[in-house]
């Protein structure tokens, strides 16, 4: 593997943005037939390196060679043409086009210049089948959840006849089985001699699939290692530059007595909430200080449940009681008035306001709740923003940079901060740790436990079952848009049992058909 010549080398790469040195003298090489993990904290420069490589950004300095030829791409179009296929960090597809078209646009099969739509759909279906997805390929992509969109982006990338495949956090919102699916294909491609660059914050995944690891820190190169020679803990050390205090304490927390929490009137109790075509009627009670995990597979309707609770979508029926009194949560503004917060999984479309600064993004929800006539005094804003920049280790720590200039993970942290600032009584977190580095992730997990100890209720959605199990008092299991079970998180509950619950739900449903 290593004895062949690298297909791609990057030498002495530097890239600065006004006020930020995103990359500084970074070297990187990629061999045919390897999976190479690029690791680093949020804002370390991983995505920037990829964008420099594919010509989205010009380099300030440095040389890139592809198959020993120096190259300088003017943009992804040229890069793709030269055999570098990329899935960028945020899902970068066109939600107004159909699924099939998103996969094939730019290289549609044609006959005399005319796109052969039948063929496009057929091939899209076949390709998705390889990822074990069965979608309506002529439906607009926007009607699917973010995770599905991510899968479609992957499908697009792997279909391109490429020498180099770059995947920037493709797994951030996929669940275990999708990840397994992806890995199967990655191995297959690797064995065909394709060089794969893979970015993720999941260490397990790195150890499962990567042959080699390059670590970046603060825009600089820390080193390149063989996976087998780098133990997990030293990888973490290399990434964050110091030792990580491990996850002790959290485990105990979640196994606390659920019964004690469930005394008294629930904070929020919904019954028979439903939305045609999205969620079957469900009922759920959440008490103050309780963390409710929402588990389920891709597209099982977790996001839909969250959106209904927050009033982001209209319900078709059902009652809701807050503090025991019948209320209505029909718009986000109403929900917020009742002390509900919702951190969406789709941070680019539904989360950040890219033009606004970090500070403004953070105080947005709080300001909205106060109404525009009562601006938050600037001093108070600065205090709050400072506090959360420190607490979540947001980089760069400048509250006045436009949030669009932040790395993906840091944007996610800004969003979290937005909701934490409002001090909600119920916080709905939909994939809050998506794309967040290991250090920050533990911080966030700790934060969640702290907050719930302080009496905040949390509805926690994550594709990682371990995370759900670690934090929740109670796990609601979704399956095919139905809430099939609510399980107390006692000693007996583990990932396997949840999977079984999902599976048995599936039996039941199959019987119904």
């Amino acid at each position, binding site marked *: 593997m290593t004895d062949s010549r690298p297909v791609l080398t990057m030498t002495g790469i530097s890239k600065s943005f006004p006020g930020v040195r995103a990359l500084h003298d970074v070297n990187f090489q990629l061999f045919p037939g390897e999976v190479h993990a690029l690791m680093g904290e949020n804002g370390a420069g991983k995505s920037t390196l990829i964008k420099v490589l594919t010509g989205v950004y010009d380099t300030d300095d440095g040389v890139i060679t592809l198959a020993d030829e120096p190259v300088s791409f003017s*943009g992804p179009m040229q890069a793709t*043409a030269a055999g570098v296929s*990329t899935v960028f960090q945020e899902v970068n597809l*066109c*939600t*107004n086009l159909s699924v099939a078209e998103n996969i094939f*646009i730019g290289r549609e099969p044609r006959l005399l210049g*005319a796109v052969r739509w039948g063929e496009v759909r057929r091939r899209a279906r076949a390709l998705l089948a390889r990822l074990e997805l069965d979608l309506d390929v002529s439906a607009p992509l926007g009607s699917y959840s973010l995770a599905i969109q991510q899968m479609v982006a992957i499908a697009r990338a792997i279909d391109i006849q490429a020498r180099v495949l770059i995947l920037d956090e493709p797994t951030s919102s996929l669940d275990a089985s999708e990840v397994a699916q992806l890995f199967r294909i990655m191995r297959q491609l690797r064995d065909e001699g394709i060089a794969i660059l893979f970015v993720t914050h999941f260490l397990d995944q790195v150890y499962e699939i990567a042959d080699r690891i390059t670590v970046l820190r603060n825009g600089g190169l820390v080193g390149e290692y063989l996976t087998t020679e780098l133990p997990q803990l030293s990888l973490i050390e290399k990434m964050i530059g110091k030792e990580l205090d491990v996850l002790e304490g959290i485990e105990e927390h979640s196994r606390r007595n659920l019964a004690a929490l469930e005394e008294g009137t629930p904070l929020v109790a919904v019954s028979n909430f439903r939305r045609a075509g999205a969620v079957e009627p469900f009922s759920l009670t959440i008490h103050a200080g309780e963390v409710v995990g929402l588990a389920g*597979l891709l597209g099982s309707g977790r996001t839909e449940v969250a959106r209904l609770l927050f009033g982001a979508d209209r319900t078709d029926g059902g009652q809701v009681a807050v503090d025991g009194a019948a209320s209505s949560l029909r718009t986000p503004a109403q929900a917020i008035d009742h002390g509900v917060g919702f951190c969406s999984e789709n941070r680019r479309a539904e989360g950040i306001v890219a033009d606004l600064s970090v500070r403004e993004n953070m105080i947005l929800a709080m300001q909205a709740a106060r109404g525009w006539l009562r601006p938050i005094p600037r001093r108070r804003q600065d205090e709050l923003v400072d506090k959360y920049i420190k607490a979540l280790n947001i980089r760069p720590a400048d509250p006045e940079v436009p949030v669009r200039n932040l790395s993906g993970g840091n944007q996610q942290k800004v969003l979290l901060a937005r909701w934490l600032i409002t001090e909600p009584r119920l916080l709905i977190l939909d994939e809050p740790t998506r794309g967040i580095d290991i250090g920050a992730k533990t911080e966030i997990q700790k934060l969640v436990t702290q907050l719930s100890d302080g009496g905040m209720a949390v509805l926690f959605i994550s594709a990682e079952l371990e995370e759900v199990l670690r934090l929740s008092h109670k796990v609601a299991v979704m399956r095919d848009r139905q809430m099939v079970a609510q399980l107390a998180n006692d000693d007996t509950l583990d990932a396997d049992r949840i999977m079984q619950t999902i599976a048995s739900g599936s039996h039941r449903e199959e019987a119904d058909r």
Partner: protein
Amino acid sequence: MTTGSLTAGRARFRLPRRQIPVLATLVLLLVMYGIGVSQYQAFSNVQVIFNVFIDNGFLLVVAVGMTFVILTGGIDLSVGSVVAMTAMVSAWLLQEGLPAALVLVIALLIGPTLGLLMGCAIHFFEIQPFIVTLAGMFFARGMCTFISGASIPITDGFWTRMSQERIGDPRGNFVSISVLVAFVVVAIAAYALAYTRLGRNVYAIGGNPQSALLMGLPVGRTRIAVYTISGLCSAIGGILLSFYTLSGAPLIAVGMELDVIAAVVIGGTVLTGGAGYIFGTVLGVLVLGVIQTLITFDGSLNSWWTKIVIGSLLFAFILLQRLIGIRYK
């Protein structure tokens, strides 16, 4: 297990939803026509429909070009002036005694060239389309007055023939050649948008330009192309207009860009780009045409009531269109 959960291919919305706005527009158009027929005897003449096409052929062609631009999320304010400039240049060159064929070629080159330049300014210098095309609008209109302060009649044989040729039963109902040209343009454009890469790239860029760029689509090239196409359509529209009026006048087609944009948007194309159809644009043009016809047939409105009634009809139409749209969402 996974497969089990994913087999049912359910999108939140099914395909027909995308066609609903267009269908609603069509239905409302028919209703409007029906109202005309029930109110005015002569309205039911087939020629009335043909006249709507004859009188709006050039508008239709220009609107087709505008549809491309709006689909990418851009806007082209220069169309009205480019139409006028094309007509003006043709009239002037013909007056100077150039042969018709040559004039036709020159006239058809000017629009796209201007469009190309504007597209380049928009793409390479990242200037907002609104200003670039506004400057283009000033420029083209300036060229008109520069060429001549007064209108120039066209007496050329070819032009006259194109203008007065009646296709169909010459005594009864007929359409003009412009209508056929317009239909050809519409057909080509509809085909291009649905079946060519260029067309699909247009939709992609309208959906999300950053994504389109990262997907490796030729964003710059496409963007420049749409302004060039719009320029070409304006040029064709200008030629048709010069057939229509057999003259070039410096003040013709003033404010036409607004009519065109309105037609495109009424036809269901979203101004932010990414969604819409050529067929919708055809309907949009017809809506404006039928409103105009209704007003003339009525013949009892004075000048200001004309404007108020046009506004009200437009409002009623858009409101209904919107309500139907919401209802079936």
